[in-house]
C-alpha cells in the first residue's frame, strides 16, 4: 500500500510542478536557515572535553574586604596569587592546576624569521594530564621542576611546525622575552572549544602556543594578559609588576573524580575561607563556588547572544515557511477534491486517504530536507566567511545531518495534518455531483 501511495504522491506532485516547487522551496529555505543557526549553536555550546568535563571543577572563593559584602553575590571569578598557591600546595584534589595567560615575544634563532608574539599559558604541572592534552613528543615538566622555576617550555604543534618544520624539537632551545628555554614537550593539535579553562582570553578558536611553568613566569615577570580585578588598595598588574594580593587574576582548576570528592572539596574551600578569616586575611563569611566545566560555561554565558538571537530569528522564519506550506498544501489537496471523492466512492476509507495525503507531504518534506541541507551547507559556508572568532568552527556533523532530515520531515508532516484532515472531510457524493 505504501508503495502505491508513494507512486500516487509522486504523480500528484508532478502534475502541478509550480505548487510543488513552491512548497519544497519554502521548506528548504526554512530548514536551511534554521539548521545553519542551530548548527552554529550546537557547535558553540558543545562540551570541550567530552567524558572528562564532569570531573573538572573551577574553584571560586571570596577574599574581598568587608565593603559592599552581599553573600547572595557571586565570589570573584578568579583567585589571588596567594590563595591559588595555598590551594595548589594543599593538594586536596586528585589533581589541581593554577594558571593564567599572557603573551610572550619569540625571538627565533633563524635570521629569516622576524620576532613575533605567541599566546602563552603559565601553569602548574598538572595542567596537561588534567585536560588530556596530547603530546606529540616529550612530556610536560614535573611539579618539582615547576616549583624550581625551571626554564622549560612545552610548545604547540603549530609553533613546532613554524620553527622546526615539524621535527622532534625536544631538547632544543627556544628564546623568548630575552630568556632561553629548553623545549621539553611538543603538543599535538589541541584546542578545546570553548577555551573553557580561561574565558578571559577569547572563548573560541583560541589556543596558546607555548606553555610555561607558572613559577618561572612569576620570577621572570613575563607579560600577562586577561582580566585583573582589584578591591581596596589593590593595584599593579601593569607592565612587569605583578598584581597585589588584593587582586584576582589566576584560574584554579581541580580534578575531582567522584561527586563525593567534589562535595568534600567544597567543604574544604569553606574551611580554607574560615582559616583565612581566623588569620585575618579574609573578612567576609565564606562564599565559595565549585562548578564543573559545563556549569562554568553556562554561568559565563559563553555562547554569544548574537548566535541565540539569530537562532530565534531563523526558527521564526521556519514558522513563517511552515504556515506558508500549510496554505499551499491546503490549496493542493482541496484542488484534488474530485479525485479524492472518486477514491472515497470506490471504497477507500478516510483513514486511507489521510495516509495517502500524509505520504505526499512526507515526500515534500524529504525533498525539502535535501534542499535545506544544501542551503544549510551554503549558509555555514557563509558563516565561515565571517570574521567572528567562532566562524571557523561552523561545520555540519553527523548528528546535525540527521536532525536536519528529521526536522524537515516532521515539520512537513505537521504542516500536512490540517490540509489532509480537511480534504478527507468531504462527502464523496457531493464531490462527484458538483463536477
Amino acid at each position, binding site marked *: 500500500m505504501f508503495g502505491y501511495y508513494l507512486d500516487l504522491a509522486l504523480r500528484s506532485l508532478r502534475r502541478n510542478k509550480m505548487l510543488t516547487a513552491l512548497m519544497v*522551496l519554502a521548506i528548504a529555505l526554512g530548514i536551511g536557515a534554521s539548521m545553519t543557526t542551530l548548527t552554529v549553536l550546537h557547535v558553540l555550546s558543545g562540551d570541550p572535553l567530552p567524558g572528562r568535563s564532569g570531573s573538572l571543577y573551577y574553584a571560586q572563593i571570596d577574599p574581598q574586604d568587608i565593603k559592599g559584602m552581599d553573600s547572595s553575590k557571586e565570589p570573584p571569578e578568579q583567585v589571588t596569587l596567594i590563595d591559588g598557591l595555598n590551594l595548589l600546595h594543599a593538594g586536596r584534589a586528585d589533581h589541581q592546576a593554577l594558571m593564567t595567560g599572557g603573551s610572550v615575544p619569540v625571538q627565533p634563532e633563524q635570521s629569516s624569521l622576524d620576532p613575533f608574539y605567541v599566546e602563552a599559558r603559565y601553569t602548574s604541572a598538572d595542567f596537561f594530564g588534567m585536560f588530556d592534552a596530547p603530546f606529540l613528543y616529550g612530556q610536560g615538566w614535573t611539579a618539582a621542576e615547576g616549583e624550581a622555576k625551571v626554564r622549560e617550555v612545552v610548545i604547540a604543534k603549530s609553533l613546532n611546525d613554524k620553527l622546526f618544520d615539524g621535527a622532534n624539537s625536544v631538547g632544543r632551545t627556544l628564546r623568548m622575552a630575552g630568556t632561553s628555554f629548553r623545549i621539553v614537550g611538543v603538543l599535538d593539535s589541541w584546542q578545546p572549544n570553548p577555551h573553557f579553562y580561561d574565558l578571559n582570553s577569547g572563548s573560541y578558536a583560541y589556543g596558546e602556543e607555548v606553555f610555561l611553568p607558572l613559577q618561572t613566569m612569576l620570577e621572570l615577570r613575563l607579560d600577562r594578559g586577561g582580566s585583573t580585578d582589584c578591591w581596596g588598595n589593590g593595584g*599593579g598588574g601593569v*607592565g612587569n609588576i605583578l598584581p597585589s594580593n588584593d587582586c584576582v587574576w589566576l584560574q584554579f582548576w581541580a580534578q575531582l573524580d567522584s561527586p563525593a570528592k567534589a562535595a568534600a572539596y567544597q567543604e574544604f574551600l569553606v574551611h580554607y575561607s574560615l582559616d583565612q578569616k581566623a588569620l585575618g586575611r579574609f573578612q567576609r563569611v565564606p562564599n565559595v563556588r565549585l562548578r564543573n566545566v559545563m556549569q562554568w560555561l553556562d554561568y559565563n554565558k559563553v555562547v554569544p*547572544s548574537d548566535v541565540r538571537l539569530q537562532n530565534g530569528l531563523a526558527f521564526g522564519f521556519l514558522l513563517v515557511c511552515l504556515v*506558508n506550506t500549510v*496554505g*499551499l498544501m491546503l490549496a493542493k489537496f482541496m484542488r484534488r477534491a474530485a479525485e479524492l471523492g472518486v477514491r472515497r466512492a470506490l471504497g477507500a476509507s478516510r483513514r486511507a486517504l489521510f495516509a495517502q495525503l500524509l505520504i505526499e507531504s512526507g515526500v515534500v518534506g524529504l525533498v525539502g530536507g535535501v534542499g535545506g541541507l544544501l542551503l544549510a551547507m551554503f549558509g555555514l559556508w557563509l558563516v565561515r566567511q565571517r570574521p567572528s572568532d567562532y566562524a571557523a568552527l561552523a561545520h555540519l556533523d553527523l548528528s546535525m545531518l540527521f536532525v536536519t532530515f528529521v526536522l524537515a520531515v516532521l515539520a512537513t508532516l505537521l504542516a500536512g495534518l490540517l490540509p489532509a484532515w*480537511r480534504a478527507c472531510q468531504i462527502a464523496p457524493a457531493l464531490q462527484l455531483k458538483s463536477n
Partner: protein
Amino acid sequence: MEIRPILASLRKHRIPAILIVLEIALACAVLCNAVFMIGQRVVDIHRTNAIDERGIGVITVDGADPKMASSEIPRNLARLRGIAGVQAVAVTNTVPLSNNNWGWAFGTNPDTRFNDAVNVSAYFLGEGGDKALGLQLLQGRFFSSDEYADSKRGSMPLVDTHVVIVTQSVAERMWPGQPALGKVLYSKPLAYRVVGVVVDVLRPFVNSQRAWHSVFFPLSPDSALSYYVVRSAPQDRDRIVLQAQQALSELDPIAVVKGHSFTDIRDKYFADMSSMAWMLVLVCIVMLAVTAFGIVGLTSFWVQQRRRQIGIRRAVGATRGHIMQYFQTENFLLSSAGIVLGMVLAFAINLYLMHHYEMTRMPWFYPPGGAIALWALGQLAVLGPARRAAAVPPVVATRSV
C-alpha cells in the same frame, strides 16, 4: 466597495483566510524585530569618532625593552617625523577600536565607592597626541609641554599628573548640566582636574551604552606607550604607514612592529557586526519572498475555486475592475487583520528580547513601518491572481465546470 459580501465569503473559507492572516502576522513580527536589529547595528557601525579617522596611520611596537622607552620613543618619533608628508606624530597607549582597553573608574567626590564610580577608558598621550589624533577641543585647553614632561607612570597603573581632558559624554555623565572645566575626577588616592573637554572619541572597546566614555592624560615617554599615531593627508596615508612600519622595525629589530591605517582598524572592528547585519537583511528578503509566494499560491487556489461565482458576477454586470477590486479588498482586509496581530506579536517579542538580551525598546514607528511594507507586499502578491480572476469570461457561468 461593499465589504459585507467579502466577509461572508471569508467566513465560508475560514481555514485559508486564517492561514493568510497568520502568515502575515508572523512575517510582520519577525520583520519588525529583524529590521530593528539591523537598524541598531547600523547605528553602532556609524558611531561618530572625533579624530582624523581618514588621515591617521597607527604603528604598534610590541616587545621593545621597557627600560629603553625614554630614549627610544623620542628617537622613533624623530625618525617618523622625517618621512615626507607626515603632518604630526605622537605616541599613545592605545587608539579607539583597537580592543586594547585601559579601563578605570572615577567618581566625582573623593569618597566615591567603587560601585558608584563611572567606568571610562584611559588614553595616555605622549607630547603632541592631541594634534596627531586630531582631537577637537570644545572648552578649555590641551596639555602644555610641562604637563607632558612632568607626567610619569612609575609603578602605578595610572599616571602621576593632576590634569585630564574628558569627552563631552564623560562631562555630561559626571556633571550633568554643569560646566566640567575645573571639576575633579577622583579615584582614591588619585585626583585629576579637568582642563579641557573634547568632542566625543570612541573607546578602544565599545559597548552599547557608554561608547564615548574616554578620558585623556598626558604622559612622558614610557613603556606603556606603544602606539605610534602618524597623521597625514588621506592620499599619503597608506604609503606613510608602510614607510613608518619599515623605519621602526629597522630601528628596533627585536620588536614586533605592525602598521595599519585607522580606517582599516575601524573596518576590522565592525566587520562582524556588518556581516551580521547583511545576514539579517538576507533573511528578511527571503522571508518576504516566501510570504508573497504563499499569498499568491493561496489566492490562486481561491480564484480557481470561485471561477463559477466570478463568472456569474460578470454575467450579471460586474466589470473586470469590480472583480479586481474584490480580490484586492479581500487581501487588504486579511492583511490588516494579520498586521494587527503581527504588531502585538512584534512588541511581545521585543519585550522578551529586552528581558533576556541586551536589547532596547523598539521605537514606536517600527511596527507601523512593517505594516505598510506588508500591506504593499500583500497588494503586490494579489495582483497576479486578481488579474486572472478578472479575466474569467462571463460565459463560465453557463458551463458546469
